[in-house]
């Protein structure tokens, strides 16, 4: 029933794998009757949203699942031998040697107590008889192979001294140390900046050839898939809904779920409505800087970090401005200054109407807060779990002097606008999904009728299909209320979908500004060019199903 693009023999063959979930779960199986094959020199991408069972499949292959999740049926054949019926010792001998795995979160995947060299050495020690000298030589070679600078220095460094990208390279080095036939990578670039991601993806493409390995690459991002996949499997609710060659799935997807996912991939699809040039300025920022000074103690020199350096920009009423930057670009500090959770440097100005918002404090600040509201990134952390939706929604208006009755009326109206039932008012945040919570957060921010809404990575934590719904909602609200939106994101693609104008930040400075078209078509700054070049999936024209 399945034809494979490659003629190579398969390294891994999963047959009818079923893993039951503990009884309390809302579905019976984590993975249901799943079969797949991976060949040598092949990158198989498994795509799916959270909870699709894609990680559980890979973890059960590595034998890393907790005991409560035990396969009830099926075989996992690795080079012809069933991993599930193998003795633990034998299986352990394969791990790290013939098959290895790379994880999502590089920051916590290395033991903080041991040097990089030590943790590389371990693999050789566990699986090969080698002299210490040879182990060191091989380890250094590996560090060079994954293109880390100064291998000799890195060898004696501790993980906390390295960046996320560097750590992920080290984990890759550990995984390929003994030339495995099978390499499983579980969202290995999700936690990384886009430029780092591009480098790691390139590394994977090289590894496929140099190491003659079969690679399972798990991701939720279709652009990444388009970048590296040879074959693709799409999973939903623990089942494979569609599989085929990269070309087939990406350009001619058949299953409605695959189509839904591909359709939700952020694309520059926005119909541009020209911003009215005559509209008044809603917020203007002049010379906004923020310097952090960690006070030196008796024995410590003081450290000065200029997180934001003299930012100048203005946003017109009804405009959506995107602020794009990688981690450490200063965009978070900028946001925290704009909503005045931080006080910017003294000569900074944040003008909202006639008012300078940057210098207020105490009750004067509190009174003016209703002008500018925010929706945060994490839908789970931004709603107090101990308060009902009613309390959460009326808090703001009541603080600004609206009567409880009126606030409640407003809350009900807003729930309708963000498409949630009016009868959820007595419930608690824990009873909602991430996307629903983000809608509640939007309603909460709108309840005080702000002039400006900041969305701080507001869709980054959501599944791609939910992401699209929330983006549409934001656009709708903008039109309905004539709202001004400042949209902060690390993802140029998402920004392009929603925003009118874009600012690109790097190291605390605005390095590029312009309309979406200008920035995408003719970027002036070198860094912007680099960012754009790093975007995955550029050669892929997502099909349209309308």
């Amino acid at each position, binding site marked *: 029933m399945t034809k494979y693009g490659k003629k190579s023999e398969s390294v891994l063959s999963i047959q009818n794998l079923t893993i039951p979930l503990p009884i309390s779960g809302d579905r019976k199986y984590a993975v249901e009757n799943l079969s797949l094959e991976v060949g040598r020199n092949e990158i198989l991408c498994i795509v799916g949203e959270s909870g699709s069972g894609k990680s559980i499949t890979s973890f059960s292959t590595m034998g*890393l699942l907790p005991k409560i999740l035990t396969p009830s049926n099926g075989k996992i054949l690795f080079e012809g031998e069933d991993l599930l019926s193998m003795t633990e010792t034998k299986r352990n001998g394969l791990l790290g040697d013939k098959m290895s795995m790379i994880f999502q979160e590089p920051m916590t995947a290395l033991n903080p107590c041991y040097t990089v060299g030590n943790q590389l050495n371990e*693999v050789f020690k566990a699986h090969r008889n080698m002299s210490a000298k040879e182990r060191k030589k091989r380890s250094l070679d590996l560090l060079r192979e994954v293109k880390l600078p100064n291998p000799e220095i890195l060898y004696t460094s501790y993980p906390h001294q390295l960046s996320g990208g560097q750590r992920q390279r080290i984990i890759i080095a550990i995984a390929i140390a003994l030339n495995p036939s099978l390499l499983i990578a579980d969202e290995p670039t999700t936690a990384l900046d886009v430029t780092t991601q591009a480098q790691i993806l390139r590394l994977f493409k090289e590894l496929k050839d140099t190491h003659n390995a079969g690679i399972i690459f798990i991701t939720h991002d279709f652009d990444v898939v388009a970048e590296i996949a040879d074959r693709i499997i799409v999973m939903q609710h623990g089942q494979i809904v569609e599989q085929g060659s990269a070309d087939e799935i990406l350009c001619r997807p058949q299953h409605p779920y695959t189509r839904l996912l591909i359709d939700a991939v952020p694309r520059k699809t926005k119909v541009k409505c020209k911003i009215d040039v005559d509209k008044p300025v809603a917020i203007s920022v002049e010379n906004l800087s923020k310097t952090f000074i960690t006070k030196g103690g008796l024995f410590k020199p003081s450290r000065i970090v200029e997180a934001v350096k003299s930012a100048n920009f203005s946003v017109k009423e009804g405009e959506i401005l995107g602020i794009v930057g990688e981690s450490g670009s200063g965009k978070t500090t900028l946001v925290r200054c704009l909503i005045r959770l931080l006080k910017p440097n003294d000569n900074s100005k944040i003008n909202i109407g006639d008012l300078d918002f940057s210098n207020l404090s105490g009750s004067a600040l509190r009174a003016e807060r209703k002008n500018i509201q925010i929706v945060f990134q994490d839908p789970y952390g931004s709603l107090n779990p101990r308060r009902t939706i009613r309390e959460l929604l009326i808090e703001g208006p009541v603080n600004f002097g609206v009567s409880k009755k009126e606030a409640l009326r407003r809350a009900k109206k807003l729930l309708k606008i963000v498409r949630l039932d009016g009868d959820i008012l007595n419930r608690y945040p824990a009873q909602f999904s991430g996307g629903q919570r983000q809608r509640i957060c939007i309603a909460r921010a709108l309840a005080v009728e702000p002039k400006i809404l900041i969305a701080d990575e507001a869709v980054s934590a959501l599944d791609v299909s939910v992401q699209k719904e929330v983006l549409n909602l934001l656009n709708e609200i903008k039109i309905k209320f004539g709202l001004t939106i400042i949209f902060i994101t690390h993802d140029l693609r998402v920004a392009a979908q929603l925003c009118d104008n874009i600012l690109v930040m790097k190291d605390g400075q605005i390095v590029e500004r312009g309309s979406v078209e200008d920035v995408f078509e003719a970027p002036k700054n070198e860094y912007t060019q680099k960012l754009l070049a790093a975007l995955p999936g550029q050669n892929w024209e997502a099909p349209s199903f309308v």
Partner: protein
Amino acid sequence: MFVYILKRFSSAILVALTVSIISFSLLYLSSDPAAAIAGENASGADIEAVRKFYGFDRPIAVQYFEWLTKAIQGDFGESYYFKLPVSDLIFDRLSITMKLGLSGMIFALSFAIPLGVIASIQPNSLIDRFALFLSVMGQAVPSFWLGLILIVVFSINLGWVPASGTDSFQSYILPTIVLGYYAMPAIMRLTRAGMLDVLSSDYIRTARAKGLSKRSILFKHALRNAIIPVVSLAAVQMGFMLGGAIVTESVFALHGAGYLAWESISRNDLPTIQALILIFSLFFIVFTFLADILNVWLDPRMRLN
């Protein structure tokens, strides 16, 4: 790292100074030291004379600085009751308390850490339940009562060990168990919780994916990380144990520093009480300081920042 140690050291000194003020002033709160020295039958004039003689009529701050200057040189004045230099008195007794504290801590650690580790490997197993039972018992049994019961069983009924005194090492056995058992539950629970936490961490998953042996995962990767908070707790417990030796020593009639403290309090022997509170506090401060230094050495994140 050097900066951290210096900072930590200066804060320890500051704490020690504050404690010295507290222990000095505590006993001026309500009682009249002059009256205490002069004795119950002294007349008003006698008390005045004593007050002059000992300098109690001067401002408290002056008295404090004089006391502190001398205390730093090891001179805590003369005991009202024993009429001996307090430092000699304490120095004699302290060795017993230290022996007891050390053996108690060794006892506690040698049970708590292996039990905690085993319990964490097999949660809800028989050993885990046993360890939990031991720790829950340990937290609910008052140590003085445990001491008395042990005396009844092992000294009176079985006659294995002496019920009191310090004549032989056997007489330390029961007090060691009582004191050690006091410190054990917390250390065991933290070891278990820490191990459970570490065992579910990402880097243990990486270690497992490397195909390392169970032993290497458990001891090299997990325990090394889990032990860091245990070191701090053990230091705190050691300080508490010495401070709590007063109860154990009085149960077993061990004439250590704790017993001396009890005697002095019963007899209103101010200089001795002041000195003992200060010394027990200093022990705590020194132990926790040493533990922090040890942790800097154990944790590269602290060592290299």
